[in-house]
């Protein structure tokens, strides 16, 4: 197996609000290896964005705070890293792109200005040279007339183009890891496919690992090697994309896959999981999915299921998988990969 780039262990990120403590990320462990594309999927409020922002140490504090856990990146624990060191990592070794290309670029500075800034924060480079690099980056992400676009403002570009600019900016320092937080959600389907193609191409050409946050299983199926399913701040299932899509184990994952529209099944009502994601609370009893689960039985409401290890890099958080387990990873311990 190739080298791990990112290894998150038992991460707890909590928000301290007037209404009490909210464990938005509650013991999440996941990892990304070199050159791998890992998808994190889940509904809104499942903690997937908070997980990604925790990696960048961009959780707004207050109210958010990483309470415990470690985020190992190339042998360093980012949770313990100082802000000064973190600035050197952000944008340089780990880059991030966001959901809203429309609002993610500063409207008052030209594309070139913002790209050149990204380049020059981490590289000693003259303005002219950086500008040349900016044009090259724009060409690399497939922007036509890159030489002109450099001097244009974000509002003069379409959403897809802006997302390409964001990717170009993220690529500027050839990071080891790209975190893409719902990069295609705000785009229409054809543009979505182009952006995904571009990301896969960059992943292959530069051997760059990608952590892709999405709520869209279609996107996962398109480019991810591995999938981590999150629900209410926890990882509920993990496996290769093929395994997850063909043979989901955890009832929530099953529900997600059943909710996908099927071209063959015409005139059928689209399946949806009843209910909504519960607001994570401290000291929740029982399985978090139990109230919405069609397989739930008494034990599910009394105890929290641990993450059962049911194969190579394959886990599921459901009592039904107890008999399939190879090794049990308790709730508090790091998951041991077998």
């Amino acid at each position, binding site marked *: 197996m190739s080298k791990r780039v990112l290894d998150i262990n038992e991460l707890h990120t909590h928000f301290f609000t007037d209404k009490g403590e909210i464990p938005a990320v509650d013991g999440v462990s996941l990892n990304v290896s070199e050159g791998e594309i890992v998808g994190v999927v889940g509904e809104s409020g499942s903690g997937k964005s908070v997980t990604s922002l925790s990696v960048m140490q961009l959780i707004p504090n207050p109210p958010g705070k990483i309470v415990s856990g470690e985020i190992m990146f190339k042998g360093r624990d980012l949770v313990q890293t100082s802000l000064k060191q973190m600035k050197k990592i952000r*944008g340089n070794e780990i880059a991030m792109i966001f959901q809203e290309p429309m609002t993610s670029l*500063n409207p*008052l500075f030209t594309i070139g200005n913002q790209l050149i800034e990204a380049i020059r924060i981490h590289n000693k480079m003259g303005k002219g040279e950086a500008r040349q690099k900016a044009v090259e980056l724009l060409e690399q992400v497939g922007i036509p007339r890159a030489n002109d676009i450099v001097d244009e403002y974000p509002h003069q570009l379409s959403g897809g183009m802006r997302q390409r600019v964001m990717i170009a900016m993220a690529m500027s320092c050839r990071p080891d890891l790209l975190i893409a937080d719902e990069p295609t959600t705000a785009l229409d389907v054809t543009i979505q496919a182009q952006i995904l193609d571009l990301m896969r191409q960059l992943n292959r050409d530069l051997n760059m690992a990608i952590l892709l946050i999405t709520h869209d299983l279609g996107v996962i199926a398109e480019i991810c090697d591995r999938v981590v399913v999150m629900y209410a701040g926890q990882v509920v299932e993990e496996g290769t994309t093929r395994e997850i899509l063909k043979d989901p184990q955890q009832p929530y994952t099953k529900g997600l896959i059943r909710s996908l529209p099927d071209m063959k099944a015409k005139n059928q009502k689209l399946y949806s999981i009843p209910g909504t994601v519960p607001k994570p609370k401290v000291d929740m009893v029982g399985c978090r999915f139990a109230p919405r689960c069609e397989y739930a039985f008494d034990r599910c409401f009394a105890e929290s299921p641990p993450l059962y290890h049911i194969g190579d890099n394959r886990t599921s958080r459901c009592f039904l998988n107890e008999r399939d387990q190879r090794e049990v990873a308790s709730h508090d311990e790091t998951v041991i990969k077998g």
Partner: protein
Amino acid sequence: MLIPVLFGMTLITFSIVHLIPGNPAQVILGETATQEAINNLEENMGLNKPYFVQYGIYIQDLLQGDLGTSLRSKTDIAQEIWPYIAATLELTFFAMIFAVFVGTNAGIISAWKQNSLFDYVAMLIALVGVSMPIFWLGLMEQWVFSQELGWLPATGRENSRDPIEPITYFYVLDALLQLDFSRAITVLKHLILPSIALGTIPMAIIARMTRSSMLEVMKSDYIRTVEAKGAGQFIIVYKHALKNAVIPVLTVIGLQTGVLLGGAILTETIFGWPGIGRYVFDAISFRDYPVIQSGILVVAFFFVIINLIVDLLYTYIDPRIKY
């Protein structure tokens, strides 16, 4: 926009002045004047003509740069008014420099270090600043810095025993043009107290506006993008956030500058500053119609000009704004 606004202004000033009760001819001639003498004077000055004819004459003269003749001093207003305007513009300029520099920086740092001790203290000062009567602040300044400490002069624009040879009537500029640095410093010293008194309210308003605007901007997605690039706090705050936050602040700066131009009477009176506010105020007590009209019109003119500059600055700052 400039021309209709100014045209409207002439109409308003003309009407208001004529609606004020009291007869200028009577005032000029005094209480004991005969009715015949008053009628003669009204005839000479055209005061017995219908209002629209009077207005027509007024506009005609105005377009030729003729602001009329002061009833009191019998001199040409266009010439007489300039030193007063220059005095007010100079004071406003320095007051706004103080207000903008202190106000924006206090607002920026308050937003940056939200809920810190600096934030609380700065916002308390801003609250006190907007609430404090100018005349009281002015008197306190004079008492502390002039009377007790003797650091700064309390009144006037310059040392009256050693006056400056006026060129532009902007005394700082005049002194510098004559390479007379000691006089320039004297003039600047005279400017400090009235500038602070006049600039305190705008400073407080600007500080509060900047803070709230910055807080809004700091939450936006593009600020997160800059953070994710690994930029330092200074670049984030002073480059990316400030440029986005400055537009509403600029509006306030423009409006406040206009307010200072017209509303500096209190400050000018306390500090013995020979500005346009006092010029018009004196004219009102003498029912000197042409001076009142011209004074208000000139203030309105600068108000419009300043707001035009602000509008042009918008387009310079925000490429999405086009006129």
